[in-house]
């Protein structure tokens, strides 16, 4: 650990990121530019989240890292090891034990508490980017609160598919002011964005930080006659039997057999530990 400054980044970089986080909390949903650094991992592997976590961690923290809900995938394992080595912090896979949780594309199933901080890795922070490629224009649209284009996009979804087909990175409006990209979480997770924990969003390549203080009002965009719906696969988890969790679909063989399992590995494991079993639970365990 002594080979690195605490949490890898130099102090001046951390101060710059910390100032951006404070502005982000003061203006929820607004994207604060920051001078993103090169990290010892490629863009797209969570460099934004890692920088925000590095600026947030103290030696007393317990860190959990998830990738699509799982603690044991490459991205999560690497980032957890990175902070074990550079910050010397304790790590855990249990959601309730963690004080800082870095996540890629999921919100944990277990409800987070006031003492926790959730750090998102964000690929494209600008919700309007695929509708308007110019940053100068999207800046203006946010300044003028000109979000008609986003509603047109959702309307086109309905006219083409019969309902709003956007299933992840579903746009939200924060405190009735900024339209925000919640990062590519499934829209199943959108209602959980109003939570007791502090939520920080870091986009490394795009050099933006934004934030949601606890209990910030976050509304998923919709229409009166096509209200927002948090959808998931219509199955129980095949390992733990949970009916309320977001599921991954796993192809089992060439014959088209498949199973659905909780994307949140800690949630699934803790349910199986207390005796819940799903359709394939015993075989798989």
């Amino acid at each position, binding site marked *: 650990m002594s080979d690195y400054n605490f949490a890898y980044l130099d102090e001046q970089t951390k101060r710059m990121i910390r100032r951006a986080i*404070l502005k982000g909390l003061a203006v929820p949903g*607004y994207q604060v530019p920051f001078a993103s650094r090169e990290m010892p991992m490629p863009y797209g592997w969570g460099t934004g989240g890692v920088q925000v976590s590095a600026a947030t961690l103290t030696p007393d923290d317990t860190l959990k890292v998830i990738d699509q809900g799982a603690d044991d995938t490459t991205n999560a394992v690497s980032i957890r090891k990175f902070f074990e080595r550079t910050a010397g912090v304790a790590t855990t896979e249990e959601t309730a034990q963690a004080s800082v949780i870095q996540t890629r594309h999921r919100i944990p199933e277990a409800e987070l508490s006031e003492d926790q901080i959730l750090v998102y890795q964000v690929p494209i922070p600008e919700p309007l980017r695929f509708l308007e490629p110019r940053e100068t224009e999207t800046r203006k649209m946010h300044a003028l609160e000109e979000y008609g284009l986003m509603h047109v996009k959702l309307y086109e979804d309905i006219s083409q598919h019969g309902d709003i087909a956007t299933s992840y990175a579903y746009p939200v409006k924060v405190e009735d002011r900024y339209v925000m990209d919640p990062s590519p979480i499934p829209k199943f997770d959108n209602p959980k964005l109003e939570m007791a924990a502090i939520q920080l969003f870091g986009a490394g390549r795009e050099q933006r930080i934004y934030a949601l203080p606890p209990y910030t009002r976050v509304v998923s965009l919709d229409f009166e006659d096509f209200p927002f719906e948090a959808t998931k696969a219509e199955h129980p988890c095949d390992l733990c039997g949970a009916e309320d969790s977001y599921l991954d679909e796993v192809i089992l063989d060439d014959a088209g057999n498949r199973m659905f399992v909780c994307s949140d590995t800690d949630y699934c494991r803790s349910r199986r530990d207390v005796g819940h079993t799903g359709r394939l639970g015993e075989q798989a365990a």
Partner: protein
Amino acid sequence: MLQQQESNSFGGGFARPAIDSAHGFRAAMSAMARPGTRQPIAGAAPPGGISGAAGALLLTLCDPETGIYLAADMDSKPLRDWIAFHTGAPIVSAAHADFALGSWAALMPLAQFPTGTAEYPDRSATLIVEVTGFDRENATLSGPGIKDTSAMALPEVAAFQENAARYPQGLDFFFTSGSELAALPRSTRVLAKD
């Protein structure tokens, strides 16, 4: 005598800069994310009658990239030297301030500080207001970071209502006393408490 003064400006910094500023930031972030709550912050001993909390905030957030404005009642040679030695931050006029330090009365008028632009509301000043305590709660707060409502001691109410009305532009405030701080971002709606 000269040596005495010098050792004042050299001392009083963070003993373990990386660790102390990490804790300092968590206090500042918790305060900003939960307006009105009081957070302990320690590790700094600034000269010139400045609270340890205000000193720790400066050490945590300021460096050569941030201009600091010192209001007349806080401005002193020992404090300037201390800030220069520990942070390297330039002392600037109110119109160019990223951070400002002073008592409430000395920081007036608020209109002299930058409040950001419509496209970049983050290009605004953060005011560190030295107060005598947090006990006389005279304002009711609501907004992001607050579950229903919370109460807070503020130097006055009208100025913060005007500030919130400019949202998303506006100023953000830290209040410091002794080894505690609280914060009020521009997003908080403020009402006088009956």
